[in-house]
């Protein structure tokens, strides 16, 4: 599961019934550089994902979301979902060792 920061909300008039009770958020996957910097991400940069959420997350929250086949496992019917919010992260104790030659 990748770590992501919610930067936007997506609303729509028409959607499949299977999506009822959930929301869609615009999420930026967090890299090591993003996690190490203290400045909050205001403006989406790089590629963002649309993540389905039924846990009640909001803008500004850090979440862990899974992508791929696992994202649509939580639904009763066959529902096309690419990214699913698995958990809302309260606290992240992130202390990587000093950077070497990052790829």
């Amino acid at each position, binding site marked *: 599961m990748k770590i992501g920061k919610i930067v936007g909300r997506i609303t729509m008039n028409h959607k499949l019934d299977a999506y009822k009770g959930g929301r869609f958020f615009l999420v930026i996957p967090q890299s090591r550089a993003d996690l190490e910097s203290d400045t909050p991400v205001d403006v989406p940069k790089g590629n963002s994902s649309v993540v389905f959420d039924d846990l009640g997350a909001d803008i500004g929250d850090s979440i862990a979301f899974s992508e791929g086949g696992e994202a649509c496992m939580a639904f009763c019917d066959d529902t096309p979902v690419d990214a699913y919010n698995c958990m809302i992260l309260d606290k992240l104790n992130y202390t990587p060792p000093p950077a070497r*030659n990052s790829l």
Partner: protein
Amino acid sequence: MLLARVDGSATATIRHPSAKGWKLAVCQPIDEEGNDIGVPLIALDDLGAGLHQRVIISSDGDTLRKWVHDPKSPLRNMITHLVDEACAPTGDPA
């Protein structure tokens, strides 16, 4: 399966029911020399990996769903091994 280094831990009060009670580790996939590859991942930790310890994480959601006893779990990554030593072949391949 990915070779990774544990770079921290995470806490989450609100989580999918299938993830209840599991420890969460922030894992950075690395190459054989310890260089970072890609973005850090959150993985379930059943083995009690320590900080900066090298581990192997699985991205097999199918087995993970059996492990957490929930056929509808959206979780994906889990620490499956604690690495003692990772050896890479040195020199040019013949």
